[in-house]
């Protein structure tokens, strides 16, 4: 810690003011400690991001490490006109995707009863009033668990879009770039992910049974 402070003191510019892309520039000019700063900016965010996608902390740590190794390997080829955060998230998300594929444990795709021909009177939600169920309190108490499980149950390609938007706060355009999808696909996946998410958590949040059956031509 002491050593880090000294480092910071010696810098001409406080790193907090530098953009990621500027840090990379300094690193490539020979200021090797800048890479560590870059790592420290993103390591925790990526750990949480990957963990939310794969649900395995230890593997998530390995994949964060692998992400930075790839960054290090290819940093010279990185186009500094682009956003570093988008690049690093693209690497992390691809690694998480491969991990899920390798595990052959892609979540079962739930709630895929897609109705292509909607009638105008179809409603996305139907409620059955059973608010006096005895397990309400129990369900409330376990809301967090239910929410985690709901996200786990989302199909991987929906989950990544959902997590990028909801916890990482990425724009649609960034998500499209990170996932390599079109903007339309991102919107559609996000909509369906939110819909499935709502369907799964509704019993705990609302005390109501929700059955939803709808979609808009998932891509």
């Amino acid at each position: 810690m002491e050593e880090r402070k000294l480092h910071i003191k010696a810098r001409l510019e406080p790193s907090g003011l530098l953009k990621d892309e500027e840090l990379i520039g300094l690193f490539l000019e020979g200021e090797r400690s800048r890479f560590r700063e870059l790592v420290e900016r993103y390591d925790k965010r990526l750990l949480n991001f990957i963990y939310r996608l794969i649900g395995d902390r230890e593997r998530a740590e390995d994949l964060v490490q692998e992400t930075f190794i790839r960054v290090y390997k290819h940093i010279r080829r990185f186009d500094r006109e682009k956003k570093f955060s988008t690049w690093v998230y693209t690497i992390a998300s691809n690694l998480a995707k491969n991990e899920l594929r390798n595990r052959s444990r892609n979540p079962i795709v739930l709630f895929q009863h897609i109705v292509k021909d909607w009638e105008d009177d179809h409603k996305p939600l139907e409620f059955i009033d059973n608010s006096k169920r005895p397990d309400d309190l129990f369900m409330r108490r376990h809301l967090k668990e239910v929410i985690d499980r709901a996200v786990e149950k989302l199909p991987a390609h929906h989950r990544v879009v959902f997590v990028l938007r909801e916890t990482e706060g990425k724009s649609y355009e960034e998500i499209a770039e990170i996932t390599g999808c079109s903007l339309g696909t991102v919107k559609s996946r996000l909509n369906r992910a939110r819909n499935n998410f709502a369907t799964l958590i509704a019993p705990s949040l609302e005390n109501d049974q929700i059955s939803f059956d709808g979609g808009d031509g998932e891509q």
Partner: protein
Amino acid sequence: MNCKKFYRDFSGYLDGTLPEERIEEIKKHIEGCEGCSSYNRIVTEGVHEYRERPELQMPDDFLGRLEHSIYQLEEEERLKRSRSPFRSFMRTISPVLSAGIAFAGFLYFFTSHTPSGQLRIEDRSARSVAVSSSSLAYVSPVRTEAFSLAHFLEGFATEYLGNRLSPLRSVSGGVPVTVEDPAFATFVSEDPSFSSRIARSSPTSSLIQTPMGFAAIPARMERPLSKLVDSENGLLVVDIKFMGKAFVAGLRKGDVIVSLDEKPIEQAGSLLKMASERNSKTRALSVVRNGRVVNLKID
């Protein structure tokens, strides 16, 4: 606006990407439709709860592990570059000649029963083989194990005890380095853990941690390494802090420190004292790496 349209536009509404008039339309619909109003609330509250989940923290040794991996990567690149002339030569010679060489090597292996190439085991010492993993220096107290490790690892990296191992000699110049610290050897062989952790949990080990951002153990060099610096004594760097002072100065795991501030290392104790001094002056180090003496300055 109906429920179908509400559903289709919902994400745009939530994320504020729709035009103002459409947002207003949706707001009106929500006010008059119980189902869509609940849907809106469930998603909003659910996402809020999801975001509030406690964040995972990075493990303390994350940067250290990353440094080891990057170091290994650099080493592999360096080896690749140094091998490339040989590779191009190999590509040009005929397949028959390659097969002949391979066959000769095969025969040699099975007739001599000794590992070919740089990595050989000194018969006289059970602990004379040290291999470094991505996280620690591994010193085998069992000769047969050391032998098989060393033989197997020659020119390769592999998985052993869950760690990626590579021959220490590849970074210390093809000369055996003997680590004479039973506590260290035993501890490491029993627990393939990180050397930074070893330092904390093994007080009997003579692992030296320095304020310069590296840890080393007393090591004895053999010829011709010892001949190079006219001394057998050195300190084997077994752990280094990623982007720390020593790392930035160019010190690497596997280096054998032979002098500090131009004073040769006569015994471990004196170096321990010197290396542990906290002062801001520039320290000059001489290390043996790849059979050569390299001078470094740590600011």
